[in-house]
């Protein structure tokens, strides 16, 4: 009985002990920016995939992909006209922008989730792991208090309390577990592949000509380096679902840095937009709120500094017009010098 109580208390502490929603708020912004990027990438071909005369033949997708199962598809509910398809795109984009700003966060996040779900359900053949993780993130952001900080909602809240709020972090924890589950699954799939064990997987991955991104001199043209990179990928992926849970900063943060290096390296070599960045964005959830708050504060200070300096510049600009009207050029020059 005692063991059960102990387990229940540990379970409660992990999922429900209130903590700062700052990591989720920062993640909300990063996630929103990546959804915008994804939508912009989709823009040139949106009607090709989702338009009435596009490739997204509803009957084929419904029959062969969904096998007649129920799925959520807003586009199927709209009248069959391209104007509605474009309208759907615009609503999704606006909701994402609202989510980034933290304006009506809960509603915006629900629309974003349903929008991303529709993009997947209506036409699943242009989706990859990046889209999947975006959709999963939307699912958890929707259920989290992501708008409790760094948001318009907080600014306009009537009984605004200057003290940072505390919230139950279960949605954040679910997203953390989800991320590590993805690394765990991909790790086990990889170790069953001979290419990964033999150290040549990156040789082939870096030679897929349709995905080639930036040139990497020497490293990817040397077999020993390629083998070292392949095996280090496996080691880093192993660390990303094991040691990442160690509470000590000395262990967790170096693992996160290794994860960032892995994803930046992949992104540099192989063109996989959104995919690498959404995984890196999810690392924010593993930062301690107090550390994250220091980063956010220094960012705020930097932004404030920039705004102040631009204000100083701008205060000179409107002044120029009025000064030009009222005083002579000599006085204008002296004022300009003083402002600078």
């Amino acid at each position, binding site marked *: 009985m005692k063991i059960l109580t102990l387990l229940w208390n540990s*379970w*409660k502490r992990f999922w*429900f*002990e*209130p903590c700062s929603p700052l990591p989720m708020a920062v993640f909300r912004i990063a996630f929103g920016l990546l959804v915008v990027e994804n939508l912009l*990438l989709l823009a040139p071909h949106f009607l*090709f*995939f989702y338009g009435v005369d596009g*490739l997204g*033949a509803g009957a*084929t997708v419904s*029959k*062969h992909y*969904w096998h007649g*199962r*129920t*799925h*959520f598809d807003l586009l199927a509910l709209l009248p069959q006209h391209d104007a509605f398809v474009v309208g759907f795109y615009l609503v999704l984009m606006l909701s994402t922008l609202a989510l980034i700003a933290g304006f009506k966060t*809960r509603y915006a996040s629900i629309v974003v989730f349903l929008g991303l*779900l529709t993009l997947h*359900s209506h036409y699943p*053949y*242009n*989706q990859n*792991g990046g889209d*999947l993780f975006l959709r999963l993130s939307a699912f958890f952001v929707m259920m989290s*208090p992501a*708008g*409790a900080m760094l948001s318009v909602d*907080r600014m306009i*809240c009537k*009984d605004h*309390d200057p*003290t940072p709020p*505390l*919230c*139950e972090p279960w949605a954040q924890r*679910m997203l953390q577990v*989800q991320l590590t589950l993805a690394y765990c*699954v*991909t790790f086990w*799939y*990889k170790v069953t*592949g*001979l*290419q*990964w064990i033999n150290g040549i997987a990156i040789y*082939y991955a*870096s*030679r897929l*000509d*349709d995905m*080639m991104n*930036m*040139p990497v001199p020497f490293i*990817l*043209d040397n*077999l020993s380096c390629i083998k070292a990179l392949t095996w280090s990928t496996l080691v880093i992926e192993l660390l990303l679902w094991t040691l990442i849970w160690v509470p000590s900063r000395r262990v967790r943060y170096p693992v996160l840095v290794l994860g960032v290096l892995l994803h930046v390296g992949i992104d540099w070599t192989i063109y996989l*937009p959104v*995919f690498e960045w959404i995984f890196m964005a999810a690392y924010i959830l593993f930062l301690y709120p107090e550390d994250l708050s220091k980063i956010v504060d220094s960012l705020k200070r930097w932004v404030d500094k920039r705004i102040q300096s631009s204000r100083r510049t701008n205060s000179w600009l409107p002044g120029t017009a009025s000064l030009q009207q009222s005083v002579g050029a000599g006085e204008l020059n002296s004022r300009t010098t003083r402002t600078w």
Partner: protein
Amino acid sequence: MRDSDTMRSFSSNRTGQVLLQRDGCDASATELKQAALCGTPSKFRIARHIGLSVFIIAYFFCVSASTLPSEKLKRKLISPVFGIISGLGLVQNWKLFCPNVRRVNFHPAATISYADGLQELWQAPRFDRMNLLEHIANDKLRRFYIDSLSWPSHKEYWVDVCRAIARRHDDAVNPVTSVMLGYRWVPIPPPSEFAQRDKLPAHNRFFNSFFYCDRSEKEQ
């Protein structure tokens, strides 16, 4: 819980703590925090936590099962709820470059035949010849043409693609009679014949995977 509720409930945190101490309750800091946070009686809070715990366990059971390599086991474990998790877009597949990376470079292509016997070659966008900006603009097309269309697991879609190609090239005077879909490909040289990244062989082999013929045209 709405965001504003969360904020409001925290503002009463200190007050809540004082009240509980006055009543002589022996509450831990966590419980105090939770009492303040939720602003709900503890019975409801416990019920809420139990409900959420069930949701968390069910979610991770389903998604973990959906990532299993064995289709049989997967079906056995989650078949009653598969409709729900797939409908919500929660079915997962983290197999990028797993278990092995593909060893061919290719691009889809099709031979279009016209009524007068003329043949024309159609090619999907050549992602291997694009610069970074073109890559960015066409990434979704790459996912469709390379990651989906060309694989036999998506063969059910080949008819639609052939029809789309035929529609795009159709001419009232000289109509399209058939479309032969396939791809141009080349194997990536194995590491024993080490190929530099910038000196990969051209896609010089052709493989036809699907033949589409417009029956209505034939009948006429």
